């Protein structure tokens, strides 16, 4: 789970795995993934007990950002 200077750098990386291109996100999309209540609300005093309520928005954001990519699909399949 790393940051690179560009997607070209990702593909050049010695540990890049061909076939996992879906694992690349732009910085803006990565920020969107990390911006639902699942991550925004961590400082809340009831974060753990309310975590199940944050799952649907997180799953929806992942699918929205990645165009329904199976690589980013957390739903039981």
């Amino acid at each position: 789970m790393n940051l690179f200077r560009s997607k070209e750098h990702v593909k050049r990386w010695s540990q890049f795995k061909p076939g996992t291109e879906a694992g690349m996100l732009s910085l803006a999309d990565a920020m969107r993934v990390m911006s639902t209540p699942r991550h925004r609300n961590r400082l809340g005093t009831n974060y753990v007990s309310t975590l199940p309520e944050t799952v649907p928005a997180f799953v929806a954001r992942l699918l929205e950002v990645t165009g329904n990519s199976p690589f980013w699909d957390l739903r039981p399949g």
Partner: protein
Amino acid sequence: MNDATQLDETYHFILSVFVERGQAPHFTEIASKFAIPVEEGKRRLHELMAARLPNWLFPETDLIASFAPFNNLPTQYRVSVEGEQRWFAQCGLESLAMTWMFPGKRVTVNAPCLDCGEPLSVELLDGVIQRAEPRDIAFYVDLPIRKWYGNLPFA
């Protein structure tokens, strides 16, 4: 007090200590915070770390290794708040979530690119990317998200 409330309390305390000092508390500090016996503090820590959150202990210890978005062991993701570098992020993705730990403050993530070793830098304020250098920074993970919890430190 029910278990859910205890988990909430312990989680909030650990995260708050990370925000304040950049390092995790020891379980004895959990015990002090809640005025409970030391062994109870240790139990609370282990109970929380077993709650299937992106947090883990150093193997075979009672020491927090990682507690998203923070890392208790230095990583390449150095995090500064208002110019002061005191924190490390768990990974590239969680480095972006650092912005939610410091509301109203300018958070900067500095790291080397793993391909070339050249620096990259992202500046965030309340969830908004203020600056990225270079502009085309990309995130990459080689494991589908459903498999992350199989071995979180290596996802």
